[in-house]
C-alpha cells in the first residue's frame, strides 16, 4: 500500500486542516479495518457505497467511502506529525477485521 498524493482541501477557522489522501489502490474493507486500528472505527454498510469514519481523539477524523482511491482526514491538531504517523501506518501491512454498525 502506497500513498500517492496528499493535498489540502481546506484550512478551517478553528485551526483544523482537512487533507485528502490518494492511495495506489481502491479502498477495501480490509484497508478500512487497517485504518481502524488507529482509532474508533464506525462503518456504515447500508449506503450505496459503504461509508466509514475513524476518530482518533484529539488527533484526527478519517472519512471515506469503500471503492474509492481517496479519503479525507480532518486533523484536529499538529497535522504534520499526525500525518506522518498515519502515512507510516497506511504503508504498513493490512490489518484487522471490522464489525458493521448501522441498519
Amino acid at each position, binding site marked *: 500500500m502506497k500513498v500517492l498524493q496528499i493535498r489540502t482541501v481546506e484550512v478551517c*477557522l*478553528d485551526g483544523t486542516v482537512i487533507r485528502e489522501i490518494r492511495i495506489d489502490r481502491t479502498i477495501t474493507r480490509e484497508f478500512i479495518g487497517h485504518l481502524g486500528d488507529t482509532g474508533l472505527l464506525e462503518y*456504515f454498510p*447500508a*449506503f*450505496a*457505497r*459503504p*461509508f466509514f*469514519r475513524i476518530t482518533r481523539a484529539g488527533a484526527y477524523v478519517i*472519512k*471515506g*467511502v469503500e471503492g*474509492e482511491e481517496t479519503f*479525507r482526514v480532518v486533523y484536529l491538531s499538529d497535522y504534520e506529525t499526525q500525518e506522518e504517523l498515519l502515512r507510516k501506518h497506511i504503508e504498513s501491512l493490512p490489518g484487522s477485521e471490522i464489525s458493521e*454498525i*448501522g*441498519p
Partner: protein
Amino acid sequence: MIYFNNAATSYPKPPPVTAAVLQNIEGVPVSIYRENVTGMNVLDGCRGAVTDLFHFKDPERVVLCSGATEAINMAVFGILPERGHVITTTNEHNAILRPLFHLEDRGAITLDVLPATSPGGISCPDLEQKIRDDTCLIAVNHASNVTGQVQSLDPIYEVCASHEIPLLLDVSQSAGSTGIDLSGRPYLVAAFTGHKSLFGPPGTGGLVVGESVRIIPWKFGGTGIRSELRSMPDLRPSSLEPGTPNYPGIAGLCAGIAFVVEQGVENLSKIRMELVRHLAGYLGPAGYSVHSVDADENPCGIVSFCRKGWSCEDIGYVLNHSYDIRLRTGLHCAPLIHKDLGTYPDGTVRVSFSPFNTHEEVDTLIEALETIRGCK
C-alpha cells in the same frame, strides 16, 4: 451524477448558452470600437437583455463585469466617501460582508448589522432607526443563499429613498428566480451574477446603477475610447468597464437571460418550488431540521437542513461519494446568518434546485437521506 448545487453555479446550461459562447469565441473578436464584427454588438445586446429583465430604462447604466463580487466591490468602493456609516444585514454573503469589514477594519466606515432571518424579513422600523446623518450606504441581500428567503424590496427601498441613501441590493440568488422591477428606483444599485439562475457562464455579471447614484471608478485601464485621457473617460458605462470584456461569457449570459425570459421567470420558479415542496415534505417528518423557508416563499429553490448526530460535512461526503449527488455543505460564504439560525459553525447541508432537476432525482436523494436516518 445528480447536481443539486445550483445556488452556487447552475448546471446544466441551456443549449443556446453553449452555442452563443462557442459562436462568439469562433468569431472575429473585435472591431476598433470593440464591437463584434460578426454580428450584433455583444455588450449592447447583453445590456439590453438586462434592462428588459429588470424593467430598467437606461442600458448605459448597466455595467458588465466578472460577477456579483466585482459588482459589489465596484459599488462599495465607488459609492462610499472617505468616512461614513453603512447598514447591512446578517443575511449577507461574504461578497458584501468582506468589503465592508475591510473598510470597517481600516476605520473608513462604521457598520451596523441588522438581523434579517425573522419570518417577515428585515424590519423596516429597525432599519429606519439605525439611519444616521452620515449613513451613506445600505447593503441588503435580496434572497438568502442559505434560507431562500426573499426580502420584500418595496418597503426597504422606500426607507432608503426617503433618506436619499443608495440601496445596494445583492440579487445574485434572486435574478432569474423571482421577478425584479428596478424601474423608478433612482437610489437602487443592483449587483447580479450570470452563472446562477440566469444560466450564463461563470465570470459574468454586472451592476445596474440607478440614476441618483454616482459611482467613482474603482478600476482603471483601457476603454477603447478617449485613449488620450489620463483618467477614465466620464462616459457611462465605459468609465466602470476598463480592460477587455469577457465577450464569450457575455454572449452566453445574453443567451441565458433570453432563455429565462422565454420560459418565464414565474414558470421556472414554479418548477423549483415544487421540487422544494417534495424534499421539504420528507425532511421535517423524517427528523431533519429544516432551516430554509417554505416552498411557497422559495422561488430560488433552496433547502437547507441538518441532522442531529451527523455533521453536515459527513452528510455531504456520503451523498457526494457514495451516491454521486452534488450539493454543498458548510456556511455557504454567509457566516452571520448561521449565528441567527443556530447552525454556526457547522453550517447546513444545502440542496439548491434548477428547473432542469426532476422529482426522480429528489426521490434518489430522499432514499439516501432515509439510509442516513437509519444509521445510529
